[in-house]
């Protein structure tokens, strides 16, 4: 009985250790006010409609990044973009969450081509090569801002919500 119990216990501990160390392939999740919650990997992103955005990094130089427009991703998740983005939908925001806990916020109108010509992308490539360590596999690229502070690294989640105040 006792041996049986400790065997179960050991088993449980092992599963924990194994599951704790199992590497899962990186992915980004879109959730919240969406009609089709979406999770996509690097491979999925490679198959979508690609865009390029140019960003002046902290080094003061302009670099070109390749990835998928945020609008495209949000539309795939069934977020109210384009013609649907009016009235109460204009009180919605997007919260971008990164692996290191960093979070930045956008209003949906900032990301929609019927409001702005600026195209914000989720990049997986820098100058058609891999993103540097610590920044990938997914980096937000927000062109045209004086500070690159919203061009956040290692994006893991995007959450859409209504502002309720």
């Amino acid at each position: 009985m006792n041996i049986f119990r400790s065997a179960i216990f050991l088993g449980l501990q092992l599963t924990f250790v194994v599951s704790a160390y199992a590497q899962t392939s990186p992915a980004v999740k879109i959730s919240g006010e969406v009609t089709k919650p979406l999770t996509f990997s690097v491979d999925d992103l490679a198959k979508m409609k690609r865009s390029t955005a140019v960003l002046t990094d902290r080094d003061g130089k302009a670099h070109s990044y390749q990835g998928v427009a945020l609008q495209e991703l949000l539309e795939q998740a069934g977020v109210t973009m384009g013609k649907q983005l009016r009235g109460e939908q204009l009180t919605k925001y997007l919260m971008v969450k990164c692996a290191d806990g960093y979070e930045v916020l956008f209003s949906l109108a900032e990301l929609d081509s019927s409001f702005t010509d600026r195209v914000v992308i989720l990049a997986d490539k820098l100058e058609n090569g891999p993103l540097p360590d610590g920044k990938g596999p997914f980096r937000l690229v927000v062109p045209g801002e004086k500070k690159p502070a919203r061009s956040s690294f290692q994006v893991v989640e995007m959450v859409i919500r209504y502002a309720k105040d």
Partner: protein
Amino acid sequence: MQVSGYKILISILLVAGLSIAGFRRQGPEPLRIDYPAYFGNRTFVPDDNPTTVEGVALGRRLFYEKKLSASQQISCGTCHRQELAFTDGKAFSTGVDGSPQPRNTMSLVNLLWVRNFFWDGRVAGLEMQAAVPLTNAHEMGQSLEVSAALLSKEVVYRSLFSKAFGTDSLTGEGIVKALSQFERTLVSADAPYDRYLRGDYQPTAAELNGISLFYGNPDAARNIRGAGCAHCHGGPKTYIELYHNNGLDTIPADSGREKVSGQSYDRGRFRVVSLRNIALTAPYMHDGRFKTLEEVLSHYNEHIKPSKTLSPFLQGVGNSNASDGLTLGLTDREKKDLLAFLHILTDSTFITDKRFSDPFR
């Protein structure tokens, strides 16, 4: 006849009104936790566990209750001692079975603003957190059911629980909820640095320079001095919920956040912690490797270990006072000033506040 009918009606209304007023507050009294506006209101209190006077009073007693441990010898307060800002001065505290904890005991301060707990942020919310030390075999090692059954034998607990949560609330869930309510009240906001922010304290020249170094980012090209600490420890709370590899090891013995996320980019990342009362909470880091704050500063200034996951804020030209970008490059004088700033984060009101002390003493 008419008149007396009127009178009766009025007296009925009066009595009804009075009794409504008298019984209006059914159940526990809501407690407002005071904190300065500069801490911001991004606080985390679950809807099903509002903070109340009765809940906090019960939680305080439970925090110091040794009956919650298998040996009846230790309480939360054994490892989390108020006079040391709720740490115990050890690199690794000893649990109920005599074994050392795998990581350094964390300070309990301004938890109202924390969402993910422990050095690796593995547990969301204080209610979930509290169950861990209570039941972990190497910490207090007693199931919530056994604890609830033991406390039910005492009249005082039956009464305290019923006041805090109503009858039949003396359960594991009630224990965890009360502890969490108490922990949310552990606000430290009366250090000399707070008095400075309120305009009641004039820091010394060294302290002022320490403040500016702490918040400032270095720019060697323009001869601007900074220590860049606020990237990670920033804001008046000296806390943002971030996970970083702060360069302790090239190959970390404890992979930290990687164990939670399963991602290699999280290797050696740990949750940034508040620096409030930091002079009281030695030794430092998740493994208590540094005995003094001088050692911590020398780590950041001269001994950052490179690795693939080292935070970008701790490397390169934009993060160095030296033009080669190899180290932080603070002078000895600047390190002393930074240290002076860390010392004005010590809040003697917090560590002597009767509301947080052991009620059994």
